[in-house]
C-alpha cells in the first residue's frame, strides 16, 4: 500500500469536505497569483530601471514647471569629457489623446539625437534608429497604447494635446516598444513639436524633464548631487531623482496599488493556511481510530506523520492548481493592460509568479498539516481504539 494510494483514498472518503476545502483554497490562491504577479512585475521594472542608470532632472517646484532647453548644455558642461555621464535627453509633456477619447496618453516630445542612447530599453534596432533620425514625424509607441488603439508599425496616428496650445499632430509609428518599463509610453521628436508650435506663433522650447544617462551607480549619485548644486539659487532650481524614486511619487498618488496587492497577498496566505489547518484538524479528529489501527498494526510514526502532512499538501496542491492555473491562463489571454488602467498595466503573469504561488501553497499545506500530524503522532493507540466517535 503506497503512500499516494492512502492519500487519494483519504481525499475521496469525504468528497464534500475535499471539494469545499479545495474551493476555499483555490479562490484566495487566484487572488494571490494576480497580486504576486503585479508585485513581481513591478520589482522587475524597478530592477531594469535601476540597471538603466538614469537620473530624472526636473524643476524643484513640480514636474509641470518647465526648465529652459539650455539646461541640457549646462548639465553636459558638468562633465565635458563624458567620464560620468553618457548622454542627456530633454523631454516635454505633450499629454496627447486620441481624438474623441478621454484617456490622456503618457506622450512626450524627446530630444532627437540622444533618445536612443538614453532610452536603450526602448529597444530600437539600428534600422529603427535610422528611421527615428530621418523622419520628422516618427513616433515610438509602447505596446499598451498600441494594442488598445490597434496601431502597427507604419500607421499614421493623430494625437490632440491636452495642454496649451492644444496642438493636433500627426505621427508615423516606427516602433512598438515591448519592454515592460516602456510599455505605456509614447515618444516623438521634440524638434517636430517646437516647429509645430512656431507655426502657430509660439516660441517655447522648454522641457519638463531631462534624463541623464550615467556610467556607474556611483556616478549617478555624484551627478545627482552636482546637478542640484549647480542650479541651486538660480531661477530654475532642479530636483534630481533616480528613476525608481521618481516613479514612487506617482505610484503613491495612484492609490498605491502595489501596497494593496502586497497586503492582499499576505491576507491570502493567512486565510489559506487557516482553511487548510482547519480541514486537517477535523480530518484527523474524525479519523483518530483509523490512525490508531494503523499504529496498532505496526505502521511507523514517521509513516503516520507523512500520511497527515501528505494529505494536507495534496489538498493545498490541488487547490493551488485550481486557483492559479485558470487565473494565469485568463490573465495571459486577456491582458489587464488592455483595460488601459495605468497602475495595473504591468500586471502580467510570469512563470516566477506561478511557480512562486504553487510553492507558497505547498509550504502552507506543510505548515497547516504540522499540528494535526503532531497530534496524530501523540495519539495513544489504546485510548483511540477504545474511543467511539
Amino acid at each position, binding site marked *: 500500500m503506497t503512500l499516494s494510494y492512502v492519500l487519494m483514498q483519504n481525499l475521496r472518503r469525504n468528497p*464534500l*469536505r475535499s471539494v*469545499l476545502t479545495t*474551493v*476555499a*483554497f483555490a*479562490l*484566495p490562491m487566484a*487572488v494571490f497569483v*494576480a*497580486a504576486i504577479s503585479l508585485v513581481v512585475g513591478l520589482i522587475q521594472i524597478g530592477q531594469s530601471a535601476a540597471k538603466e542608470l538614469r537620473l530624472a532632472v526636473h*524643476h*524643484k*517646484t*513640480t*514636474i*509641470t*514647471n518647465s526648465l529652459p532647453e539650455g539646461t541640457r548644455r549646462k548639465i553636459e558642461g558638468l562633465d565635458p569629457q563624458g567620464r560620468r555621464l553618457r548622454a542627456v535627453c530633454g523631454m516635454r509633456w505633450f*499629454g496627447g*489623446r486620441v481624438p474623441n477619447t*478621454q*484617456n*490622456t496618453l503618457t506622450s512626450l516630445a524627446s530630444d532627437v539625437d540622444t533618445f536612443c542612447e538614453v532610452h536603450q530599453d526602448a529597444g530600437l534596432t539600428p534600422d529603427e534608429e535610422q528611421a527615428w533620425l530621418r523622419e520628422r514625424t516618427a513616433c515610438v509607441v509602447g505596446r499598451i497604447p498600441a494594442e488598445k488603439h490597434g496601431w502597427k508599425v507604419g500607421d499614421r496616428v493623430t494625437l*490632440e*494635446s*491636452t*495642454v*496649451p496650445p*492644444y496642438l493636433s499632430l500627426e505621427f508615423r509609428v516606427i516602433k512598438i516598444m515591448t519592454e515592460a518599463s516602456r510599455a505605456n509610453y509614447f515618444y516623438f521628436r521634440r524638434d517636430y513639436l517646437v516647429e509645430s508650435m512656431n507655426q502657430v506663433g509660439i516660441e517655447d522650447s522648454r522641457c519638463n524633464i531631462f534624463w541623464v544617462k550615467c556610467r556607474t551607480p556611483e556616478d549617478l549619485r555624484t551627478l545627482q548631487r552636482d546637478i542640484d548644486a549647480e542650479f541651486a539659487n538660480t*531661477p530654475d*532650481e532642479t*530636483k534630481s531623482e533616480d528613476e525608481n524614486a521618481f516613479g*514612487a*511619487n*506617482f*505610484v*503613491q*498618488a*495612484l*492609490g*498605491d*496599488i502595489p501596497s494593496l496587492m502586497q*497586503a*492582499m497577498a499576505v*491576507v491570502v496566505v*493567512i*486565510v489559506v493556511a*487557516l*482553511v487548510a*489547518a*482547519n*480541514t486537517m484538524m*477535523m480530518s484527523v479528529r*474524525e479519523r483518530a481510530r483509523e490512525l490508531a489501527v494503523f499504529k496498532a498494526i505496526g505502521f511507523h510514526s514517521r509513516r503516520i506523520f507523512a500520511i497527515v502532512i501528505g494529505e494536507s499538501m495534496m489538498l493545498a496542491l490541488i487547490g493551488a492548481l485550481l486557483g492559479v492555473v485558470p487565473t494565469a491562463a485568463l490573465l495571459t489571454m486577456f491582458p489587464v493592460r488592455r*483595460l488601459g*488602467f*495605468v*497602475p*495595473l498595466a504591468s500586471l502580467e503573469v510570469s512563470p516566477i509568479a506561478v511557480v512562486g504561488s504553487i510553492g507558497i501553497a505547498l509550504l502552507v499545506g506543510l505548515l497547516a498539516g504540522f499540528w494535526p500530524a503532531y497530534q496524530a503522532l501523540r495519539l495513544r493507540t489504546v485510548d483511540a481504539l477504545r474511543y*467511539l466517535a
Partner: protein
Amino acid sequence: MALPLKYHWRHLLSRRTSTLLTVLVVSAVVGVFTWMVGFALALRGSLAVADDDHKLIVIKRGATAESNSAIIPEDESRLVALSDVATDAATGERLISPEMLTQVSLPRLRDAGRTSANVAVRGVTPMAFKVHRKVRLVRGALFDLGEPQIIVGAAAAKQFAGLEIGSTVQLGSSGNRPYRVVGIFSADGGPMESEIWGYLESLKNAYGRSMYSSVNLRLRDGVDPQNVIDEVEGPAIQLSAWTEPAYWSQQSGLIKAYLMLAGSLIAVMSLAAIFAIANTMFSSVAGRTREIAMLRTIGFSGRQVLAGFVIESVLLALIGGILGCAGAMAWLNLVGNRKDMFGMSTFTTMAFEINPSPLMWGCSLVMVLAVGALGALWPARRAAALDVITALRQV
C-alpha cells in the same frame, strides 16, 4: 420553542480549535473588507460634496481639466454677458469667478516625506467665496490682496508638509516666491479642501501668466444648467462647461477603476470565507448526527434545527467580524488613515481620510451576516433533512 442560544455557544466552545480557525478566516476577510469599504466611502463622501449643479466650471475646449486649460480674458468678458448668471443681492455684482490653477510639489507626511504629491494651487478673487459656497475660512485670516499670502485647505494641511499657519511655501514659475500661510479653509470635505488658495493677480504675476485656467459661474436659481452649457459650448463662446458633479465624476475615473479592482478581489475572498464556513458547519453536522436526531425525537422541528445551525454559523461569523473590524481599526490607527489619489488628467492630488462611520460598520455587519448565513445554509439543510430513525441507530 427555539433552541437556546447557549446551546450553540457551548457547541462553538466545545469544538474550540475548529471554531478558532474559522473565526480567524472570517476576521481576515472582514478586516480587509472593512478597510476597503472605508476607503470607498471616504472617496465617495468627498466627491458627493461636490454636488452643486448650479455652479458651472468653464474650461478651454480640448482641455481635460482646469490644470491644462487656458482661457483668455476676452472669453471671460463674454461669459459675464450670460443672462443666467446670478448676481449678488447686496452689491449687484455678477457671480463669476476667474481662476488660475497650478501646482506645487509637497512632501507627504504619511511616509515622512519619502515621496511628494502635486498639490493644486488656485488663484482666486474674493468673488470665489460667493461662487464656491461651501468654502469658508475655519482658522486664521483670509489672504491679504497686497501681500504674498495663501490659505490652505484643511485636508491638504493635514497630509502635506509645511502647510501650518505661519510657514511659507515657495511658489512661482521658478519656485522662488515665498508665500506665507495665513489661514485654513474648509470645503465641507469636498475636493477643494485638498487645494491651496491665493490671490489671483498675485499668483498670475508669480507664474508669469496672462490667461485664466477656468471661469466658475454661479447660475440663478431655477435655471436649467444644460441650457447655459449649450450656450457656452455654442458658436458664440466656444468653451467647454461642466456642472460641478459632472466635472468631478469625469475626474475620478481612476478612482472608480481602483474601487472596482479592490471590490472584485474582496468578493473572491468573501466567497472563499463562505466555503470555509460551510466546511466547518458540515463537519459540525456530521459530528452531531445522533444529537440532531435526538433533538428531533424530543420535539424540535426540522425548521428549528435548520434555524439553529444558521444561528450557530452566524454567531461564528459575527465573532470573526468583530475581530476583523477591530483589526481594521487597529490598522488605521497604526498605519494611518490618510490617503491621496491623483487625477491622471488634472495632475493634482486629492487628499482624504478614512474614518469609521456607521455606514462602514453597517456594510461590514451585513457582509458578515451574509457570509455566516450563506455558509450555513447547505449544511443546515442537510441536518434538518436527517432521517431520524437511521441516525439514532448509527453508532
